[in-house]
């Protein structure tokens, strides 16, 4: 019973860590640009397909595909931001929602056309397979690896935002765009680079997550709600908020599916509505 509980907690945290990795970019761009981007999952899917393609066609080892997934998604994000997203920053939420739904539809159709509607296989290297036993409880090595990567990325992201000049520019732009522009910060460039960074992290998450989340063309739609929950519940524009929300969501989702499978995803949707009512601007509000 207890080992079950620990196992569920562990899987939940791994799932949550992955959700955080994919959604944190969405949180920053939503906080920074106020853009309701429902197409964020498309960048994660792109990362996943890049990994699969490199592994299966060109025989690149799994770990080496991850940075490439990051770069591919970041470039795609940068290009789309410059060409399309940027024009809609001042548009109404309705326009943004419609635009990003349109993008999701196109991406799903394109991915089906290129890779077919089936799930993509992933071949993990041997040293990431299997389980290790900690105090008699079996923990999946891949999930441990996942958590480790997310911890490293989170620390790196925290350092970038708190310590570097670019991070200071992001923080300034989130707080007050006009004043930042007045201080000589090129806000548009900060937007583009942040968007690219967020998309890249989603791509990395997509590649890492093939084994956990699966990968097929409906990916952006299937997990859209999860990413949005993480951002809306956590509070857009912060890092701690989405982290907390993602871990909670991961644990509740895994526990719900394990202990009360007949209720299904009802648990997390209900939890989301309740949390949004209690904390309308997210668990950790930027403007406290």
């Amino acid at each position: 019973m207890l080992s079950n509980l620990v196992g569920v907690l562990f899987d939940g945290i791994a799932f949550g860590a992955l959700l955080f990795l994919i959604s944190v970019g969405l949180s920053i761009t939503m906080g920074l640009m106020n853009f309701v981007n429902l197409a964020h999952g498309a960048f994660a899917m792109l990362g996943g397909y890049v990994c699969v393609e490199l592994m299966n066609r060109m025989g690149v080892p799994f770990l080496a595909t991850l940075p490439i997934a990051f770069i591919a998604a970041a470039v795609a994000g940068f290009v789309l931001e410059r060409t399309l997203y940027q024009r809609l920053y001042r548009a109404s939420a309705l326009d943004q929602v419609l635009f990003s739904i349109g993008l999701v539809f196109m991406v799903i159709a394109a991915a089906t056309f290129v890779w077919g509607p089936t799930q993509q296989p992933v071949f993990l290297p041997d040293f990431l397979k299997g389980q290790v036993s900690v105090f008699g409880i079996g923990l999946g090595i891949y999930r441990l690896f996942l958590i480790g990567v997310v911890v490293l990325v989170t620390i790196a992201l925290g350092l970038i935002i708190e310590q570097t000049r670019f991070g200071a520019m992001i923080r300034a732009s989130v707080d007050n765009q006009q004043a930042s522009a007045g201080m000589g910060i090129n806000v548009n460039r900060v937007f583009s680079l942040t968007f690219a960074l967020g998309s890249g992290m989603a791509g990395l998450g997509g590649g890492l997550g093939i084994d956990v989340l699966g990968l097929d063309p409906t990916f952006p739609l299937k997990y859209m709600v999860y990413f949005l929950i993480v951002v809306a519940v956590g509070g857009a524009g912060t890092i701690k908020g989405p982290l907390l929300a993602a871990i909670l969501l991961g644990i509740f989702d895994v526990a719900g599916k394990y202990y009360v499978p007949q209720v299904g995803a009802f648990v997390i949707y209900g939890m989301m509505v309740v949390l949004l009512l209690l904390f309308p601007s997210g668990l950790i509000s930027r403007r406290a």
Partner: protein
Amino acid sequence: MNLKSLSIIDNLPAPRVPNDRWHKLEYLFWVLPFVVYFLFPNHLVLASQIMILGLFALSLDLIVGYAGIVSLGHAAFFGLGAYTSGLLSARYGWGEPISALLISAALAALLGYITSFLVVRGHELTQLMVTLGIGLMLYEVANKATDFTGGADGLWGIETWPVLGMFEIDLYGKTGFFYSLVVLFLMFLLARRIVSSTFGLSLIGIREGARRMPAIGVNVERRLVAIYTVSAAMAGVAGALLAQTTQFVSLDALGFVRSADLMIVLVLGGTGRLYGALIGAVVFMFAHHYISDINPVYWQFWLGLLLIVIVMVGRGGILGSIENMLERRRERLAGGRS
């Protein structure tokens, strides 16, 4: 830029007084269904589905186009109406269509009323998430309660009794066609009455500047709750109509894609015009019917592209573009004269 455009008073449109008079084109529009009936007697089933989708889009237009509430989960009310009507017949043996329609509307209105308090309070993102969440919750309930709703297989075994005790639902969709047409027309009259009343004007006021409306004595929250409830009831009626005329309810009736498609129908036709919803439904269903036949995957691709194009250039959808064109022509003519 000439001097004339600088004079502000001249350029403001004449103040709009609520005007309930029917335009010539409107009469013409409502003759069209009869033309369709006589010219395409083999496509009546498609025609009634278009009308049902039009009614559903009409209900969304009330909240999106007039009150400015963006909803990602309007299918919740549509699906609730469809399942209510379907379950009444399939599980309780009550197939009388009109009363089932009213019960579906009442239940959808009740759900709309309860959830409206959650929706109207939040800002945009919260609004989106709450409507989305409520829609998904209903979807999960219908999906998991397999014994009652049929789950992913859909709800079979619906029998609709003759409408008004006289008109049997037939294979060619004749009864379904007129039944849908009458219901759509009545609902349209209701919607038209609402938006051309002072209440409708106050909704536009809320859409344009919710913060200032209290200053002229408007209780914003109460008005939004009211219109959201009406809209939910109307969506419920549309769902019930679909269940009764097709005698089947699929789980998709509650799905997110249904809500997203609905949004597309509305912006395609043009928001905030009522007729936009109907015209959008016609164009959408025709495109869906013909492009899907070729390849369903392509359909989704073109649909996505169309959405992006509408957002980027064709603001206001089909009706908006026509209005802009007419406006420009009028300006050109006026410019030529002076």
